[in-house]
């Protein structure tokens, strides 16, 4: 059994990322999409922290803090949008919002 290395963490984050992407692409519910985005964020965070651990440098962690802050902001705005959207067109279904249709 090999020792715990950076690549483990990176692999994990890769998988987590994959799951997040899958979620974003598959679910119809906007709220769900947002949650999956959070997963992707987490994947990124894991990367950062892991690298800062194995390539000893605190910057990674600092950035994680920022990422989290940004994530929080994103969620706040995202959910705000969701509510606005729901109020306008009684739906949270992504498909039904296709104003961008060409």
């Amino acid at each position, binding site marked *: 059994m090999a020792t715990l290395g950076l690549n483990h963490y990176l692999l994990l984050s890769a998988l987590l990322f994959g799951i997040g992407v899958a979620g*974003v*692409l598959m679910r119809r519910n906007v709220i769900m999409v947002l949650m999956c985005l959070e997963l992707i964020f987490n994947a990124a965070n894991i990367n950062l922290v892991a690298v800062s651990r194995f390539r000893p440098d605190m910057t990674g962690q600092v950035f994680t803090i920022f990422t989290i802050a940004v994530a929080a902001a994103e969620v706040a705005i995202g959910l705000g949008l969701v509510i606005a959207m729901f109020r306008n067109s009684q739906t949270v279904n*992504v*498909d039904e919002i*296709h*104003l*961008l*249709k*060409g």
Partner: protein
Amino acid sequence: MLEYFWLIPLVPLVGVVVNGLFASRYIRSQLFTGVLASGCMLVAFAIGLGSFVQLAGMPAADRHVEIELYDWISTSLVHMHDNATGVSAAPFNVPFGLQFDPLSALMVLVVTGVGFLIHVYAIGYMKHDPPDKGFYRFFTYMNLFASFMLILVLGNSFAMMFIGWEGVGLCSFLLIGYYYQKKSAGDAAKKAFVANRVGDAGFLIGMFTIFFTFGTLDYDQVFAAAAANYQVGAGVITFATMMLLIGATGKSAQIPLYVWLPDAMEGPTPVSALIHAATMVTAGVYMVVRSNVLFSLSPATMTAVAVIGALTALMAASIAMVQNDIKRVLAYSTVSQLGYMFLACGVGAYAVGVFHLMTHAFFKALLFMAAGSVMHALHGELDMWKMGNLRKYMPITHKTFLVGTLAIAGVPGLAGFFSKDEILWNAWAGPNGAPWLWAVGTLVAGMTAFYMTRMLIMVFYGDSRMDEHTESHVHENPHVMTAPLVVLAILSIVGGYVGIPANLQIGPLAALHERVDIVRWLEPVTGGHSEATEDHGEADAHAMLPQSDTLVGPAVGGEAAQVVARAGDEPAIVLAAQETGGAEQEHAEDHTALEWTLMLISTTVALAGIGLAYQIYGRGKPVDEPAKRFGGLYSAMWNKYWVDELYNAVFVNRAKDLGRALWVFDDAVLDGTVNGVAEATKQSANASNEFDGRVIDGTVNGVANSVWSSSWVFRALQTGMVQNYALVIAIGAFVLVSAYLFL
């Protein structure tokens, strides 16, 4: 007194400032304004007289005071010719300097003295104008004029003279245009100033030539250098003097620039008396006399001066013979008398020119003011055909006018006789004289006598041609107007005795002559050769040789005397040789004889003129008879030889046409070009815009359309569903990563 002479031009400025600034708002009193203005003139006269006396006290050689008040213009280096000897570089310096010498002194006395009388007269003449409107304006301008005129005669350099020169021109503009509601007045004013400006252009060029020739504009230095370094006939001197002559013709109303003076009669009569008879118009004569050294060096110019003078005198006199407007007659008479003065200068008798200038100032001012008082009494009537028999109503005016007439007509014993006779004698026998000049002069004397007598008769004698209303109101004017007339009348009688011709120097006259002789008085300025027959002329000239090394005024006389002396050796070159020098003594008797004959002839001609006039107008004959008798000539004279029309046709209107043409050119061609360029730019812009719209946009839209039509598949991709896009993004990521992996 003499050390304060520089105050003379400043004193009238007091009147200008006080009247000009406060009279309209605060003073509002005719008495104050008038008295102040005349007071200034009187003070100036007093100072002038004091200085004059003091000057007379000095020996003839150093009668020359100079003062530089401050540095007016001084610039960086200028490159000029150094008195024909080489080149030099010196700054262009013009100090604000005044000088007081015999000539200036005489002019100052004339200007301030006659000026004072006219101011006094004007108080009465202008009394109809409200003190806070016209009245104060009038006296402000008059004082301003006086101060400029005094600067003109007192200045010690050509530049200083130019200040006064232009200044008096301005004042004459303002005063001619005094009744500015009248269009004619405005036109006359403008005409006067522009005509003067033409002359001034010549004056300027002459001044520049002098500066670059001598490196200075100061009289003494210029004249000394000229007398020392240039010989008679020097081309540059001729050029300079010709240019100065143009200026003089402008200011002194000689051919070809005389046309403005008759129109100038639009101004109030005192103005005509002061500016257009006594002082300003004589500035040209003064200038010629002042720079006599230069003129003497240029025979060509001298001839020009003499000829111009003679012709002007003749032409103006002939016009004056037929005019009916009382002031116009006097105006043309002035022109003709100025012609006399030019004639005198032209033949080299500068002193005589000044002599006539002085006497003319007396009797012409007198005549104008008398005419003015007639007009005043007749409510501004100018037409002599509407007068007559005024001697009944206006005794003083009549008597004084009579004196003036006799004086100007050259009746023996009065001022005019002496000066005119001197001129005629010099025209014949002067340094530059010629018999035909004398003939013309004598003819003019006759004409003068004729038209003056005609005027006298038509105005004061015969039966009245006034309408009842006017006649009932005619009255002699108040003393404030008549007193000056009397004073001037006296002057017109005695004024002549300061210059007694050689042949009359007998008994008491000879004694008087030894006392006062204007010619001798002016010799420091005009030099020894100034008068042909002065038997002591040469003596004085020699007496002045010693100072000829110094660079002050008398030296000029000395240099001139040297010219004379040089002449003695080689009679061929120098003008003065004919009459002065050794040759002069033995011919003295013949001269006296000749002079007697000429004098008798001219006097006879004058009396003949008087008689003729009496024949024609004195007998109550039909007044238009002369017109019938010689029609063509008469109408030519009556229409002033159509000179005004000619000038308008040739110069004025052509200039206007040119201006109009250039304006059109400006709009059409130059501006047209500019706008054309702009238009072209705009067109090309439009064109390229079209090109954009049609071709380029066309292509673009074409492509777009084809894309649109062929883009159903892409359109299908454009679902507007976020997740489709996300999927595409993911695909992109996939592609990238796989590229990274497998490439």
